[in-house]
């Protein structure tokens, strides 16, 4: 039984300039004790996806599909049930570098906030002890609870976000760009921390990042998003080193593995920009930038197809698998 199952999720923002489909028919699965990476550039819909796990999309967004958390659909829950589920069943590690922390409140108070919300019977001392424990779990001194966000470094803030996410003992953690804006050494620490959590606590982890190499080292499986769709998914190693979709290949070449001779010969860089979600190309959304595009790519929209030789790997490209053997998303 999967911890998280997203079924045919679509999120469309209604703006004054028309409807903008940020996520178009995405299906994913995460098991307890495993980690899934979601890769993609900005505009691919990955952050929107993260928000839907806790139904955090704005009111102007139209959401269809199902997001099953422990077999309960988050999207159709009552508000009361939703508020109970938020943070206690699943939590989100927001990007620490942004203003995800209230600048006028001490960090300890913010970490303790969900704990107090979900268990009002705890005493102040009890909450403080828990907060101290969480801080040391993520490798920070318990005294940091008295600091304000602006007094912390980027790495410290990110750890605080992780500590905060662990507060109510969730079964699933979604980390939205946990390493962006951090320098490489600190990145490694944060990633190791997340890996340790999955291993020691048995939580399910979803990591969202534009950096494919980050995901490859941390996650068991990786899904690559482009223009609101999953265009490739499979085991992390397969997706990174034996990518089937031209976009994935270009993405992994953009983050070459130092010391890997094959990386030196991979195609470098990708001309053009990701498509604006409100103005998608016809057929396969990647065809304007694809080096292997054919005529039919302009007219045929492709869904995920199984790679014939690698079990569990799928790519949404006409060059993968045989026509007619399309896998239902």
């Amino acid at each position: 039984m999967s911890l998280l199952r997203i079924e045919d999720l679509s999120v469309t923002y209604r703006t004054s300039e028309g409807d903008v489909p940020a996520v178009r028919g995405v299906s994913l699965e995460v098991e307890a004790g495993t980690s899934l990476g979601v890769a993609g550039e900005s505009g691919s819909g990955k952050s929107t996806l993260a928000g839907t796990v806790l139904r955090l999309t704005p009111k102007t967004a139209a959401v269809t599909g199902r997001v099953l958390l422990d077999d309960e659909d988050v999207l159709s829950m009552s508000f009361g049930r939703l508020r109970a589920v938020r943070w206690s069943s699943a939590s989100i590690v927001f990007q620490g570098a942004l203003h995800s922390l209230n600048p006028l409140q001490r960090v300890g108070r913010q970490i303790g906030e969900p704990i107090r919300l979900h268990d009002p019977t705890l005493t102040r001392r009890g909450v403080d002890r828990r907060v101290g424990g969480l801080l040391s779990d993520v490798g920070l001194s318990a005294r940091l609870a008295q600091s304000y966000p602006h007094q912390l470094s980027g790495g410290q803030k990110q750890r605080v976000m992780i500590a905060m996410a662990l507060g109510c003992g969730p079964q699933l953690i979604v980390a939205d760009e946990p390493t962006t804006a951090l320098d490489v050494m600190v990145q490694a620490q944060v990633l190791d921390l997340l890996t340790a959590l999955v291993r020691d606590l048995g939580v399910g982890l979803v990591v969202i990042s534009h950096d494919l190499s980050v995901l490859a080292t941390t996650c068991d499986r990786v899904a690559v998003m482009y223009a609101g769709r999953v265009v490739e998914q499979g085991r992390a190693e397969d997706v990174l080193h034996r990518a089937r979709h031209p976009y994935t290949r270009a993405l992994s070449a953009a983050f070459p593995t130092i010391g890997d001779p094959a990386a030196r010969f991979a195609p470098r860089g990708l001309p053009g920009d990701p498509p604006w979600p409100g103005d998608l190309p016809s057929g396969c959304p990647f065809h304007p930038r694809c080096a292997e595009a054919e005529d039919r790519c302009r007219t045929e929209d492709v869904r995920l197809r199984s790679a014939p030789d690698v079990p569990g790997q799928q790519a949404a490209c006409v060059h993968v698998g045989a026509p007619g053997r399309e896998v239902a998303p």
Partner: protein
Amino acid sequence: MSSTQEAALASADHPTPRRYAGGGLGTYVVRRVLSAAATMLFVLVFNFFLFRLLPGDPISLYTRGRNMDQEQLRELRRELDQPMLTQFVDYLTNPFSSGVDSTQFSRPVWDVIGDYVWPTVILLSTATILSAVIGIAIGIRGGWSRGGTFDRVSTGTSLTLYAMPEFWLGMVLLILLSTGVGPLPGMFPSGGTITPGVDKWSLDGILDQLWHLFLPALTLTLAYLAEYALVMRSSLVDELRQDYLTTARAKGMREKLVRRRHAVPNALLPTVTLVFLNIGFVVSGAITVETVYSWPGLGLLSYQAIRGPDIPLLQAIFLLFSISVVVANLVADVVVAAVDPRVRA
């Protein structure tokens, strides 16, 4: 990686910060007080030279439009003939010394001012408190229901009130509610603090004074609350865009609680600061509104001083107003520092 290794790395990453709570605020307040003292000095210097360096014979400046008797003129000439430096030092050591008497009242200027202070304090404190409380409440409600009917109506009304000269508003209110136009009864007094002959401290007297206070206080309250409502609203709207509210919601917090615990307190900060920083404009409002209502306060005194012109009195009033603004700004700085930890760093 074991947790001990992680802890070691963490402390290498960034040293644990000191507790800023107590020490930081103290040093910050001291810095601001010193800065305010420097500003006060500037005000004194400015005030001194303003009247001496402007074009024209200083004597005529002091005596313009007024017939002073020979004794006063001689006294004045004696004082102004002293070397500038001596005058300056004298002034700095005691800016509140009488120096020259008020030309209109023929009494020391600070005595005159002392007689007129209280009515102004009463009027301004009433208006400031009411306008701040009501304005902020309106701003919060409007900012939260952004685009809704309440928001549009209150913003439109606030903009219109803000565009009104407060003395004109006073005159309109007077003509509507004191003189009475058309169907509206003239039920409010047309000026002064109290009906002549009524004992100030009796119950009737107090009610009578409140009755007299009503229209001028209403005028100033309406004039000021507009700005507070507008600033509070826009500050709240800006705050609602922030990411930390999403974090709060994700934790399972009810929307009302998100508002009360995170958005509003953070948005309140700029508005409260503004209330203090606005003292300068509050003072300006007092001058014209007291004139319209014949309210015997410093504002009316200023008006009379202008009409004189009574330069010594004007100089003293100017000094008093400037000092109040410096003090108010200092209070604003301290309040902000007490609430916003980023400022103290």
